[in-house]
Structures are given as C-alpha cells and as structure tokens.
C-alpha cells in the first residue's frame, strides 16, 4: 500500500490556483523532500494530506481519506508545521503530560530521554525557552510518537545552523526506520539533500520534477566545460547552462558520463543546482499564496 496517493489534487483560493491537479504517490519507508519557491503550493499540498484544508480530487493517506477520517488518521500521522506553534504558556512537563494523555502511541520515556540530552528544564514554560530549545522540545514530543507518517513543513525555519543540523541528525539517527515515511517541505535544500530518498520540485501548483535520489545520481550530470569544448558540449543538448567563475557549467539529462568526461570536469549536480535549472526553465513568477 502506498503511504500517500493523490490523483488530480486541486485547491484554489478564490481565483488563485494553489494546487493544479497534482498526481502523487509516496511509498512506505521513503523520505520525500517537497521543494519549491514560496507560494508554490507546498504547504497547501501538505495541509491537504493532513486534512487541514479542503481540496478537490482524490487523496488517500495510509489508505484513509484525510477529509472525512482525519481524527482516526492523526493516530498514525504526526506533523510539525513550523516549530513556533507550541503554545507559549505551556510548561514542558504539561506538554509531556498532555501528549501522553491523548496519544496512544506516545512513549513518554523516550521523550524524557531525549530531553535529558538538552538543557531544557521540566518546569520551564515554552515562552522562556529559546527558539532552538522549543525545536528540541517539539522534536522530543514528535519523535516519541510512533507514527507511520511524519510531515514536516519548514521545520527548521529561523533556526541557526547548529540546531538545523542537530534536528536532521536526530531525525535520521533516532527516529527514521524503513517502516516510517517522512515528507518534508523546505527551501533550505542543501541541508536536507543527504537525508532524502525522493525529491519533488513543485512550482505554481504543479509538480515540476520528481525523481528518486539514485535515479537523479545516475541520470543527471553537471559538467564544467573546458572553454574550447563549449560548442561540442552544446550539441549534446544540455537542459541548462550557467556561468560560474567565467566557465560554462552545463547540466545534462541522460547523457553518457564517459562521453561527458572528455568535455570537462564531471560531477553529480546538487539538488539546489537542479532546482534552479528546472524552475528557471519554467520562467515566470510563482503564483499562489504561501498557505
């Protein structure tokens, strides 16, 4: 069974099309990165998956309809939409008590264990914690929930690099196993690159690009071309070209690596470079609202 399956997922806000008929299939055990510019429809797509917004089209999450079975679904799905959503008045101990009280899959010992590695006191209130500490607390709560699907929407926005790194390390080392699925939206592409198994670019409410990481590594090649071989390289139909320090960097899809190696220095493109190439090729301002 696919973890998430969407067909013709569509959502409009007035005349603005936030999601323009998306087809999506996420298998169990994957870590999917949903990458796109602001207002591309990332959050709208995630909100539809979480049953937080109405939508048109077909959508099944863990075999359930998020529109009608949200209450049941939330026992198996957990999400962090921006870490700044923990209520400011709540004490750390109260947050633990509450989640333990209402969530059948919450392992309090695990959360406590995670918190002992931080400097967060149990009787502190969220408003007294730094933003990084609030993230740690939220992460401690969420990672102690034995969920099948974890949805993260810009989970590290506004955090410094230390906490961002810690966040993804904890997620991978202490939380992720092959039976869970994680889907995360972000535009801080570089930091999550190594974490992802699947990549999806979303632009103007449509899926602009999708690939597994293995496929990406085998198909796409970036070549920093020797100046005298630029013309020869262009014959091979690069799908994107940019200048870097006075040299042409060409991006190829499905061209033999050996052949390209003769033209210059070859490497696997980073997701950020690929993103710029794909989205840049579809010129025009992003539409839709970041909601």
């Amino acid at each position, binding site marked *: 069974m696919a973890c998430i399956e969407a067909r013709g997922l569509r959502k409009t806000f007035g005349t603005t099309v936030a999601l323009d008929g998306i087809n999506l299939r996420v298998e169990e055990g994957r870590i999917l990165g949903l990458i796109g510019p602001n207002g591309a429809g990332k959050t709208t797509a995630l909100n539809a998956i979480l049953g937080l917004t109405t939508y048109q089209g077909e959508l099944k999450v863990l075999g359930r309809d998020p529109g009608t079975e949200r209450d049941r679904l939330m026992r198996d799905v957990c999400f962090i939409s921006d870490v700044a959503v923990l209520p400011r008045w709540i004490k750390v101990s109260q947050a633990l008590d509450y989640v333990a009280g209402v969530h059948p899959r919450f392992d309090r*010992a695990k959360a406590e264990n995670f918190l002992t590695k931080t400097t967060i006191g149990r009787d502190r209130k969220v408003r007294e914690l730094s933003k990084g500490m609030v993230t740690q607390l939220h992460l401690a709560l969420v990672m102690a929930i034995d969920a099948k699907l974890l949805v993260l929407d810009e989970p590290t926005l506004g955090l410094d690099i230390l906490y961002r790194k810690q966040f993804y390390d904890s997620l991978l080392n202490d939380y992720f196993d092959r039976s869970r699925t994680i889907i995360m939206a972000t535009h801080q592409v570089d930091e999550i690159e190594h974490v992802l198994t699947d990549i999806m670019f979303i632009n103007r409410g449509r899926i602009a690009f999708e690939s597994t990481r293995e496929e990406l590594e085998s198909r796409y090649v970036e070549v920093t071309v020797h100046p005298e071989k630029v013309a020869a390289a262009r014959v091979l139909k690069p799908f994107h070209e940019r200048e870097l320090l006075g040299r042409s960097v060409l991006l190829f899809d499905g061209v033999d690596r050996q052949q390209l190696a003769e033209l210059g220095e070859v490497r696997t493109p980073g997701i950020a470079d690929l993103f710029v190439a794909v989205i840049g090729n579809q010129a025009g301002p992003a539409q839709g609202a970041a909601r």
Partner: protein
Amino acid sequence: MNSQSQAIPNSPRGWQALSDIPWIHRFVWCVQRELWENRSIYIAPLVAGALALLGFLVSMVYLPGRMRAALAGNAGHEWELIQQPYTYAALLVMGATLIVAIFYCLDALYGERRDRSILFWKSLPVSDLTVVLAKASIPILFLPLITFAVTVVTQGIMLLLSTLVLLGNGLPVAPLWAHVLFLRMSLMLFYHLVGIHGLWYAPFYGWLLLVSAWARRVPFLWATLPPLAVGIVEKIAFNTSRFAELLQDHFGGGPQGLDFSPESVSMEVTPHFHSASLLSSPGLWIGLAITAAFLAGAVRLRRYRGPI
C-alpha cells in the same frame, strides 16, 4: 539511549494491538489543558471570595452591636444587615466568574488560531468535537461548580467567624443560625449556578464560542454588534423590538414568572419548586438546542480554520 527506546523502532510494531485511549480520558485532558492555560478560571473566584472575606472581617467590628439591636426587638432591618454580606459575597464571586466566562469563551477558539498553537493541537489525535465540548464545558459546567465551591467555602468561613465573634462577646449564636440558613442557601445557590448560570445561559456561551471560532479579528465586536444590528434593523423595519425582548426575557432572568434576584434565590424560594419549573420550561430546552447548533457550527469551523 535506554533499552526501552531502542526497542521501539526494532520490534515489529503492533499497530492495531495498541489499546486506544477512551474518549472520556481525552476529554478530561482537554479540560485540564484549559485549566492550565486559563488560570483565571479558578483564580478570579478565589480572589473575589478573599475580597468578600476581607470586607466581612472589617464588618465584624459592628456585628455584636447589630446583634444586640436585632435581639432587642427592632428586628427587620438589623436582620437584613446581618444577612446581606452572605448575598453580597455570592454576588461578588458570581460576577467575577461571569466575566471570566465571557472572556474565556471569546478567546477559547480564537486565541489558539492567533498564536498558531492550533497547529500543535491539531497534530494530536483529538477531534474538534472533543476540543469544542471541553471548551464549552468550562462556562457551562465547571465555572458554575467552581463558583459554587468557592462561594460555599467563603460563606462557611463568614458564618464561622460570626459565630466566634458572637461567642467571644457572650452573645447567643442560635438566632444567627436561624436567620442565615446555610444549608438551604447553599442548595439554592447550587441550583441557581448549575441551572441558570450553566444550562439556562448556555446559548449565550455557545454564541460566544461560535464567534470565537469564526472571527479573524476582534471577536468581541463580532459577538456584540450582530445582535445589536438585528435589533436595530427590526426596529426600523417593523418598529418592534421582539428580538431584544427575546434576549432580555431569556438572559435577563430565568424561566418566566419567577424572580431570580439573588435575595429570593438565596433565602426564600424552595429548591423543589425551582428545579421542576426549570426542567419543564421550554425555554431551557430550546436554549440547549440552540447551544447545540452553535457548538456544531464551532466544531465545523475549527475543522478547516487555520492560524490567522
């Protein structure tokens, strides 16, 4: 990492085998959450009770004199003076919790959207219905009960103090207890708070909660202006004020034909008569049906309303 936390990702997960949490437990945790967040629910009545006691303590200076005058025979007025503080204490606590109830309701479903914490609450398996019912139970059930408890304790302390002062001055205690009917007063208070402040006013709280779930800004204005507008439009259109009268009839008192002024409630009318007439009053049931409709609307709105 201890062995317990290690075991979880590695062991085969029995998704279905995990026992679920009973609904009532979730509900109780939701109520607990409200008490954590809104401590004024119990602090305000406690402060009001303490203030009443403070005032009463000062008045103790005059008690022996009043008692002597009352016993001397020019009865009516002096007895009133001795009874009054009990009624005022009850009114003070009631007034405090009524204000708390209004502001609580207006913020209950608005505040969590404004501070975005709704995204955290909604990431947990608690249905919108459970949350809205827990929030509605605060003004309809818990605030009346807390008001009752605080008032009874306050009045009990007052009666005890009076008794001690009278004994200390060598005055008889029996006449005091004969005029301040503590048990009956408490029964009447309980009925008044649970029946009237809770159930009879329920549509009022339901309306405030609905507005709180709906408004994007200033829920207070959205709660007050539309009823006012309806009244004014009716006045202009038909030169009548049925809507205003309806509201006044319902919230100005209790079931028709009964006097619900505090004096009569706390001292005179018998509880049996009251509760029978309340339960057989169509006004109560119509009000509760309207409350249910308002709350259903609030549940529906909370389902898809995001942070603001």
